[in-house]
C-alpha cells in the first residue's frame, strides 16, 4: 500500500504534487461550504478523494499538453495549473471567472494551461481530446492530450469510435478512466460488462490499470506513457482505481441506499491519497511534519482569500448576455 518507490526523487516535484493535492481538497471543501451556505448557484460535483489521479497525471504534462475534463472537473483544473481566484469567481458566476461566469462549475476551462474544459455531457469530451491529438499529429507538434472520464462514461459509444480512430492513426492521446466505483447512484459492476481495459485492448490500445490513490504510481506510469506518446507510440489507456468521498454532487447527502458508510470510511481512513503521500514524505525525510503543516495552512489561507475575493467580485454586466455567441 505504499506509493511506488521508483518514481521521481526530486524533492521539489514531490512537494509540488503534495501541495497540488491539498489545493484540490481545499478547493472542494470551500466549494462544498459555499453550496451548503447557499452562496453558490446550482450544484457541483466534488473531486475529493480522487486527487492523486489528476495530480499524478497532470504533473507529467506541460502547459502545451492538453486535457479535457468532466462534470467532476475542479481537480483537473487545479492540477493543470489554474488559480483559485478565477476558479471561485467562475463557480459563483462572476465576471472575473475563467469563463466570465458563463460556464460555471460544469464548463470551467483554462485555456492558458491547456485545459480545454469541463463538460456536462458524460463522455462529451472524448471526441474533443482525440481531435486535439489529431491536430498535434497533423501539425507535427509533440504535445499530448489526456482525456479524463469516469467509469460511467465508458458506456458511451463515442469512446469506442474515437479509440478506433486514435488506434488506426497512432494519435498522441491518453484515455484516463477514473473508476471511482460509481456513476451517480449506481455501482460500476451494474453498468459495465466485461473488462474496461480489455475494451481498449480490443482496439489494439495498450491499457494499464493503476492504483489511483497512489500519486507516485500514477505519475510514474503517466510519465512513461506521455514520453512514448510524444514519439508517436500512442494512444494509451489507463484505468485509475479511485473513490469519491462526497455524494455524486453536493446535494447528494443521504446515500446509504446505494453505498454504505463503512465503505466510505474505509477509503477515507485507509486509502486517502493525501494522507498516504504525507506519510511517505515524512518517512522518507523529504519533508517534516512542520513543513507539511505549513503547506496545508498556506493553501487553506489562499483558498479562504480567494473565496472572499470571489464573493465580493462583481457579476458580468447584463450587456454580456449576447456577447460571445459568435467569435469575430
Amino acid at each position, binding site marked *: 500500500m505504499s506509493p511506488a518507490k521508483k518514481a521521481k526523487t526530486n524533492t521539489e516535484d514531490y512537494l509540488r504534487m503534495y501541495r497540488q493535492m491539498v489545493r484540490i481538497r481545499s478547493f472542494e471543501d470551500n466549494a462544498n461550504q459555499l453550496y451548503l451556505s447557499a452562496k453558490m448557484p446550482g450544484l457541483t460535483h466534488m473531486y475529493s478523494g480522487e486527487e492523486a489521479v489528476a495530480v499524478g497525471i497532470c504533473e507529467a504534462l506541460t502547459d502545451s499538453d492538453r486535457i479535457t475534463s468532466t462534470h467532476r472537473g475542479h481537480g483537473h483544473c487545479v492540477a493543470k495549473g489554474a488559480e483559485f481566484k478565477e476558479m471561485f469567481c467562475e463557480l459563483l458566476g462572476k465576471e472575473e471567472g475563467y469563463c466570465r461566469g458563463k460556464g460555471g462549475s*460544469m464548463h470551467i476551462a483554462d485555456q492558458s494551461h491547456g485545459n480545454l474544459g469541463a463538460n456536462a455531457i458524460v463522455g462529451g469530451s472524448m471526441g474533443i481530446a482525440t481531435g486535439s491529438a489529431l491536430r498535434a499529429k497533423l501539425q507535427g507538434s509533440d504535445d499530448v492530450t489526456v482525456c479524463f472520464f469516469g467509469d460511467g462514461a465508458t458506456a458511451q459509444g463515442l469512446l469506442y469510435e474515437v479509440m478506433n480512430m486514435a488506434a488506426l492513426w497512432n494519435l498522441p492521446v491518453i484515455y484516463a478512466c477514473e473508476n471511482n466505483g460509481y456513476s451517480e447512484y449506481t455501482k460500476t459492476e451494474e453498468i459495465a460488462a466485461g473488462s474496461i481495459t480489455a475494451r481498449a485492448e480490443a482496439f489494439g490500445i495498450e491499457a494499464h490499470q493503476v492504483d489511483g490513490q497512489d500519486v507516485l504510481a500514477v505519475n510514474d506510469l503517466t510519465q512513461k506513457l506521455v514520453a512514448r506518446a510524444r514519439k508517436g507510440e500512442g494512444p494509451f489507456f489507463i484505468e485509475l482505481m479511485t473513490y469519491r468521498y462526497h455524494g455524486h454532487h453536493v446535494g447528494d447527502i443521504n446515500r446509504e441506499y*446505494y453505498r454504505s458508510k463503512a465503505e466510505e470510511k474505509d477509503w477515507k481512513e485507509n486509502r486517502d491519497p493525501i494522507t498516504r503521500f504525507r506519510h511517505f514524505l515524512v518517512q522518507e525525510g523529504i519533508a517534516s511534519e512542520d513543513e507539511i503543516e505549513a503547506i496545508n495552512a498556506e493553501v487553506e489561507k489562499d483558498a479562504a482569500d480567494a473565496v472572499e475575493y470571489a464573493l465580493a467580485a462583481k457579476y458580468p454586466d447584463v450587456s454580456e448576455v449576447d456577447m460571445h455567441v459568435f467569435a469575430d
Partner: protein
Amino acid sequence: MREITLSQAVNEALAEEMRRDPTTFIMGEDVAEAGTPFKVLSGLVEEFGTDRVIDTPIAEPGFMGMAVGAAMTGARPIVDLMFGDFIFLIMDQLCNQAAKTHYMSGGKLNVPLVLRTNLGATRRSAAQHSQSLQALVAHIPGLKVAMPSSAYEAKGLMKTAIRDNNPVVIFEDKLMYQDKAPVPEEEYLIPFGVANVKREGSDITLIATSSMVQVAEKAAEMLAAEGISAEVIDPRTIVPLDEEALLKSVRKTSRAIVIDEGHQSYGVTAEIASRLNEKAFYHLDAPVLRMGAMDVPVPFSPALEDITVPTPEGVAENARKLCAGEMIHAA
C-alpha cells in the same frame, strides 16, 4: 380537490398505466432505486420491480434504440431521458428510426413509445442542462410532442401518451416538479390536440406552452389590474396542434403573443405565429408577437441567465404596447 405536485402526478400516471398494461416498462439512468435525480419515479421500482423499472448504463443512443426495438415488437417502453439537452444524443434513434418506421413500413410496424424528458432554464445548470428543445422534435413528422403546464396536464397527457400507438415526446418543466395543482382522484386522460383556455379574455390572446403558461397567467393578472383583458391559452400538445382553438381566440381578440421557452429563432413561436398570421390575417389588428428564449446558449451566471427567458413583466409590457396600437417592430 386534492392538490399534488407535478412530480407526484407523473408518478401516478406511470404507476396507473403500468398496472393497467403489463407490456409497459421504464428504462433510463438511475430510474430504479434512485427514482431519478429529480426523484419523480420514487417508489415505482418497489411496486414493479427491476424488470419493469430498468436502470441503464449511460448510453442514451443505445437505450433509446432498444426502446424502439422493444416498441416495434410488442412492448410499450417509457424512456427516461434525464435532461432534455441529451436529446441531441438520441436524435438518430428518435428521428430517423422511431419517427419514420410506421410510415416507411407502409403502416405495418408501430412504435408506441414515450420519451419522458424535461426543459427549462434559470436553474443555474448552464448551457448543457437548461435547454428547451421542443422545436427540434416538433419539426420531425411522426413524432407527437406534449408540453404539460401543470400537474393536472402532466398526469392526463402522460396517460394518453402511454396509450398512444406512436412515439410521443413529453417535456416536463424541471422547475415545476414541486409545484402543486388540483388533480382529481378519479382516472382521466387529456386528449392530444386539444388546447386549454386557462383564462378568458377579450383584448389579447397569450398563447403559452409549458413553463410559460404560468408566466402568461401572471402577465394576465398584471394586465387585468390595468383594465386589459388577456386570454391565456395552453396548446398542451404542439404536435398535434389545436390550430382551431388558437385561431378562434385570436379572431376574437385580434391580437396575440406566443410564448415558449425554447430559443426564439426557428423555434416553436415561429410556427404558431405563422399559422395565426396565415389563417387569421384579416382579423389581426397588430402583428403577432413572439417571445422565446434569447438566441444565446444558456449562461451560468445568475446575473445573465434570468434575462434570457420571457418574464411576466416582459409579456405584460409587450401586451400593453400591442393593445395601445404601438407598432413594436414595424417600420
